[in-house]
């Protein structure tokens, strides 16, 4: 299981870049954190998620 934005994904290994593309994310508008550490944009292509990883994908929204 890999947890992405609080949802469990049934996979043992997953390419981050593949996941982002398959789900239609605009890579220029997001930031990714894996196990509370930033994943720099330049590392998306080579980054492999493993079972037990907790991932956050965030973007900017209106706020005060």
């Amino acid at each position: 299981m890999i947890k992405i934005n609080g949802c469990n994904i049934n996979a043992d290994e997953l390419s981050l870049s593949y996941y982002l593309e398959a789900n239609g994310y605009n890579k220029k508008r997001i930031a990714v954190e894996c196990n509370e550490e930033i994943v720099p944009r330049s590392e998306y292509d080579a980054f492999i998620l493993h079972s037990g990883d907790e991932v956050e994908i965030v973007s900017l929204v209106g706020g005060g």
Partner: protein
Amino acid sequence: MKKDTFILGGREFSSRFILGSGKYSMELIKAAVENAGAQIITLAVRRTNTKESENILDYIPDNVTLLPNTSGARDAKEAVRIARMSRELGCGDFVKIEIMRDSKYLLPDNNETIKATEILAKEGFVVLPYMYPDLYAARDLQNAGAAAVMPLAAPIGSNKGLASKEFIQILVDEIDLPIIVDAGIGKPSQACEAMEMGCAAVMANTAIATAGNIPLMAAAFKNAIDAGRAGYLAGLGRVLERGASASDPLTGFLRD
């Protein structure tokens, strides 16, 4: 007249109105920014799904400095994570620390805010901490490397005005950093008053977003902030302890 600007993180700003971008439709944000003449806009960082086709950045002019906040953080550690993500989003180094543990009054946690400020300032962020107006906390924030302090005027989103006026004045008098009033300012006259007190800038969101006419209210705040700043720079006239003082000559009356 000398150009009146203030500096945050090495950047010079002539507008003293920091505009929040929450609670608007995307189309109205652009009009609000333009009418406010704002050079700094706050934003929030949230989990995203790909269903959202619009991105707020498409509605904010390029020359505006983005000030992401750490709302949603309950302690220093979460605020630091959110700040790092905001920098990765390409927002630059500015961050407004916002840490709350109370969901009813949404009051900022000064202790955790000081801790987060220290960590992020060391990492090169321009740290603008939202805080409860307390002199000791403000001094600690200054020592921790804050670029300004942002005391609340009243509970966030309440539009209640300068409820903490006396304590904000203490910060203006004692803290050698820009004091930016954040949260609770509900109408232009209150923003004007904060500027007359010597605050460096005013931040507002709900007052604009909940107004009947958003672009017009943004313009009203801009004018009020400019007027208050000019009043402060001019030096306010004295107040009499008691009695009156005629403005007209006390001679030449139509009687002997």
